[in-house]
C-alpha cells in the first residue's frame, strides 16, 4: 500500500547501502594484497579516525559544533588505558568503560551546552576541550603527564603482527558506523536535523530540543570515546597533545572535505586525507596547505563535498555530450 519510494526519512541519495557492503568486502580482502605492516598501520589509524569523524557528524547534524570532540576521544583513551593499567582489568571491558565515561561527561556538559548556539557553543566547547587536556597533563601519577602514558595493556596480547588488529578495527568501524547510520536515519535523526534547521519550529511541534541535543552529544561522545580507547590499546602509548584543539579541527576538515551533508562524506574525507599523503610521501609536510587547497576547491566546485564528485562528473559528461551532439 505504501510506495517504497515514499519513505519520508531516508535521504540516502548519494551512496547506496550496497556500496558500503562492497567496500567492507574489499577492505576484508585487502590484506591479501597489502602485506606491509606500515600500510596496515595506516589503515588501522584511518579506521579509528573514520569513527571519530562520523561520530562528530552525528553531533553536527543537530546543529551543534563541538570543538572538543578530539578531547572526548582522549577521555575514552585515557579512561580505558588508566583503568586497565592500574586495576588490571581486561582492555575489552575498559574499552566499553572508556566509551561510557566519555558519554557520561558528554551528558553532564550537554544540558548546560543545550542553551548555547553557534559561536557561543563553539567557544565554550573549545575551552572545555582545553580544560580536559589540562586535566590529562596535571594528573601525572596516572596519565604520565607531559611525557605521555606508557605501558598500556595490549588489546590482543597473542597477536604477532598487525593483521589481527587490522581485522579488529575493520570490524569495530563497521559496527560503529552501522550503529550511527541507524541513529541518523530514523525518527531521532530526523528530529535532530529539524532542530538544526529551526529550533523554534522544532519545539513548536513538540520536539524536546534539550533532550535531543544531549542525546546526540551522548551518542557521538560514546563512539569517539570507544574509538579512542581501542586506539590506546593498539598504540600502547598516549600523549595528550594528540587530542588537542587542532585534532578536532582536523576532524572537521575531514568531514568538510568529504561532504558534511551526507553520511558517507566524513568517511570519504578521512580516507582521502589519510591515504593520499602516504602515496606521495613528499607531500606529508605540506598536508595542511594541501588540505586547505582541497577545501577551497570543494567549497567552490563541489557543494556536496568529495562524495558528490561522481554525480558532478556525470552531470559534466551529459552536458558535454549534449554539446557534441549539438555541434555535429
Amino acid at each position, binding site marked *: 500500500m505504501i510506495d517504497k519510494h*515514499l519513505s519520508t*526519512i531516508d535521504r540516502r541519495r548519494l551512496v547506496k547501502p550496497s556500496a558500503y557492503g562492497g567496500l567492507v568486502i574489499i577492505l576484508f580482502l585487502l590484506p591479501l594484497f597489502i602485506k606491509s605492516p606500515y600500510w596496515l598501520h595506516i589503515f588501522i589509524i584511518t579506521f579509528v579516525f573514520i569513527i571519530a569523524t562520523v561520530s562528530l557528524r552525528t553531533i553536527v547534524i543537530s546543529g551543534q559544533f563541538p570543538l572538543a570532540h578530539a578531547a572526548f576521544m582522549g577521555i575514552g583513551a585515557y579512561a580505558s588505558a588508566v583503568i586497565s593499567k592500574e586495576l588490571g582489568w581486561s582492555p575489552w571491558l575498559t574499552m566499553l568503560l572508556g566509551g561510557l565515561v566519555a558519554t557520561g561527561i558528554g551528558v553532564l556538559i550537554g544540558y548546560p551546552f543545550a542553551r548555547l548556539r553557534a559561536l557561543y557553543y563553539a567557544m565554550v566547547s573549545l575551552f572545555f576541550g582545553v580544560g580536559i587536556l589540562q586535566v590529562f597533563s596535571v594528573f601525572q601519577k596516572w596519565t604520565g603527564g607531559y611525557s605521555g602514558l606508557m605501558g598500556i595493556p595490549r588489546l590482543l596480547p597473542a597477536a604477532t603482527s598487525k593483521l589481527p588488529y587490522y581485522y579488529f578495527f575493520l570490524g569495530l568501524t563497521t559496527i560503529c558506523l552501522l550503529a550511527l547510520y541507524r541513529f541518523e536515519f530514523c*525518527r531521532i535523526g530526523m528530529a535532530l536535523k*529539524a532542530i538544526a*534547521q529551526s529550533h523554534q519550529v*522544532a519545539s*513548536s*511541534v*513538540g520536539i524536546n530540543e534539550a533532550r535531543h541535543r544531549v542525546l546526540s552529544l551522548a551518542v557521538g561522545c560514546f563512539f569517539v570515546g570507544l574509538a579512542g580507547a581501542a586506539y590506546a590499546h593498539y598504540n600502547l602509548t598516549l600523549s595528550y597533545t594528540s587530542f588537542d584543539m587542532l585534532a578536532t579541527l582536523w576532524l572537521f576538515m575531514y568531514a568538510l572535505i568529504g561532504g558534511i551533508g551526507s553520511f558517507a562524506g566524513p568517511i570519504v574525507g578521512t580516507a582521502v586525507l589519510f591515504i593520499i599523503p602516504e602515496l606521495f610521501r613528499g607531500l606529508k609536510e605540506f598536508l595542511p596547505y594541501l588540505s586547505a587547497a582541497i577545501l577551497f576547491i570543494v567549497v567552490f566546485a563541489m557543494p556536496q563535498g568529495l562524495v558528490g564528485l561522481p554525480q558532478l562528473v556525470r552531470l559534466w559528461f551529459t552536458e558535454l555530450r549534449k554539446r557534441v551532439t549539438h555541434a555535429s
Partner: protein
Amino acid sequence: MLLEISGLTKYFGGLAAVSQLDFHVNKGGISGLIGPNGAGKTTVFNLITGVFPPTTGRVTFDGIDVTGKKPHVIAELGIGRTFQLNPLFADFTVLENVSASFHLRPKSSWLDAYFNTATYRRNEAYILEQSLEILQLVGLDKVKYELAKNLPHGYQKMLGIARALATKPKLLLLDEPIAGMNPDEIAFTLKNIRKTQQQGVTFLIVEHNMQILDLCDRVVVINFGQKITEGLPQEVRKNKEVIKAYFGG
C-alpha cells in the same frame, strides 16, 4: 472556554510589549487578534506558546495552567502554531516537513525508533498516510518532493499550517497567515482555514491585514500591547479607536 488569558504582561527591559491583556478563545471558532504593526501580537503568541515566560499574568489552556511551560510541553498539550518568518524546515522536502512534525501523535520511543520495531514501523506508515492526507487538504500534494526552501511564499505559509496540523492541535495559532500573499493565495488560504475549522480545530489568528475579519467570529484588537476593544467583526470595524489606531487621527 479553550484558552483564557488574564493580566498578561511582558516587559522587555523597560518597555511593556504586552500589558494587562485579558481575553479568551471559545472552542470551535475562529478568533482574530489584530492590531497595527508593532502592537505586540506576536509577543502574545510567544507568551502563549512558551517561547518566553510572561512578566506577570496567566495563560490557561483547556483548564490547565500553562504559564511559563516549555514550548514542546505546550505543543504536547495541544497548541500548534505557525511562524511569521522562517515558518518551516528549509532543507527538508515538503513531505519531510509534515512527517517530522508528527513527533507527538503517534509518539515513538527512542528505542522503538532505533531498533525499527513493529510499533515504530506501524507508526511511520500511519504518519506517511496522514502526512499525505494533510498535504492533500492544504493543496500541496503536487509539490511534496520539493525542498521547502524552493517553494513560493504562499506555499511556504500553507506548509507552515500543514506542519502545525500534524501536531493534531486543539488550538492552532496562526501568525500572519496571509501577510505578503497575492489575492489568489489569500482566497486559497482563507478557504483552507475554514475547511480545517470545520474539522474541529479552533483557530486564533494574528493579522494586521483587516481582510482576515471576514473569517473571524470574534476579534480582539490590541495596540501598544493593550486591548483597545473586542467583539464581533462588524462591530470592531466601526469602532472609532480601531480606525484611529489603523489610520491615525
